[in-house]
């Protein structure tokens, strides 16, 4: 009977000890102390909260304005430079589009000429006509291949650059949003613009 009383007392002590541990770990003062986050007082805390809300709003704006890399690359794959236009990189867009049109156009032009000469070659039965048409067909074909290969290189670089430029655009977009968040007044070509 004595033993059981001792055990009972021990169990009670242990329970009290273990129940006290979490209460000791949680410091209400420390929890509610704003200085822990570098806030001197509640106005600092409010400023921080306001800043957080603004950042969340900017993040929403960023998500609307930011461009997906796969989206710009898909556009650039269809027409070189199209992806750059969508990220407002107009000079690069002009360069890729103009270069692409010139190279692809020249390549197709020479390929078409080579096919005309090749058709004449296949229908020819005189040795001079055969040789002449084959030589011209081959010459135009090689020229077309040079232009089309140059187009392929330009197209590939355009894809690569659209990916890189989109990353830069998104990075700059966030910086611009952060820098301009208090700039409600801006100078535009149309005059002063005030945003509310």
């Amino acid at each position, binding site marked *: 009977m004595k033993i059981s009383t001792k055990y009972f007392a021990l169990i009670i002590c242990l329970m009290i000890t273990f129940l006290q541990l979490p209460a000791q770990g949680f410091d209400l003062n420390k929890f509610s102390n704003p200085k822990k986050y570098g806030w001197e007082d509640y106005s600092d805390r409010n400023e921080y909260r306001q800043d957080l809300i603004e950042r969340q709003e900017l993040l929403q704006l960023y998500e609307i304005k930011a461009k997906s890399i796969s989206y710009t690359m898909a556009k650039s794959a269809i027409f070189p430079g199209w992806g750059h236009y969508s990220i407002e990189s107009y000079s690069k867009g002009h360069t890729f589009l103009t270069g692409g049109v010139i190279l692809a156009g020249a390549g197709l032009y020479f390929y078409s000429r080579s096919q005309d000469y090749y058709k004449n070659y296949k229908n020819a*039965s005189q040795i001079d006509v055969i040789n002449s048409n084959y030589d011209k067909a081959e010459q135009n074909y090689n020229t077309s291949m040079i232009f089309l*290969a140059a187009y392929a290189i330009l197209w*590939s670089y355009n894809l690569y650059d659209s990916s890189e430029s989109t990353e830069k655009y998104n990075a700059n977009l966030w910086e611009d949003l952060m820098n301009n968040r208090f700039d409600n007044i801006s100078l535009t070509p149309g005059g002063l613009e005030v945003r509310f």
Partner: protein
Amino acid sequence: MKNILKLIVIVFVISMIACGLDRSNPLDPENGNIDTPKLVTGIELSCSGQGAINKFVTINWEPLQFNESNGYFIYRSQSYDGTYDRITVVRDNQQSSYTDSDKIIPGAYFYKMSSFVYLNPANPNDNERLEGPLNRPGEPGIMVPQ
């Protein structure tokens, strides 16, 4: 970036080497199916004399061997650099002359000749014959008198 550029250059070089036009014309000697016909040599022109009623121009040449030619084409024009029309096909490769009396009026006449070979000489087909290089007579042309 450098790896991508290297890959592009390699693909470009391979495509330039691999691509090309086939010599798919069966009459192309480069295929090895047919030999180029020989140039017709020794071409000489003579014509009817002054006052002849039936005017003509006779063309003579040196006949080629059977393995060098299966026949000849003869072309005529009334100007040196003008369009030459084919006036006849000589199917006998041993023939060495031809007399042109078709619509011959007094004036200048210019001729060219070539030989041809059949793709399959054992089974001659006019649609499968290769014409050799064109040759002119030693003289630029001939003047048929009144």
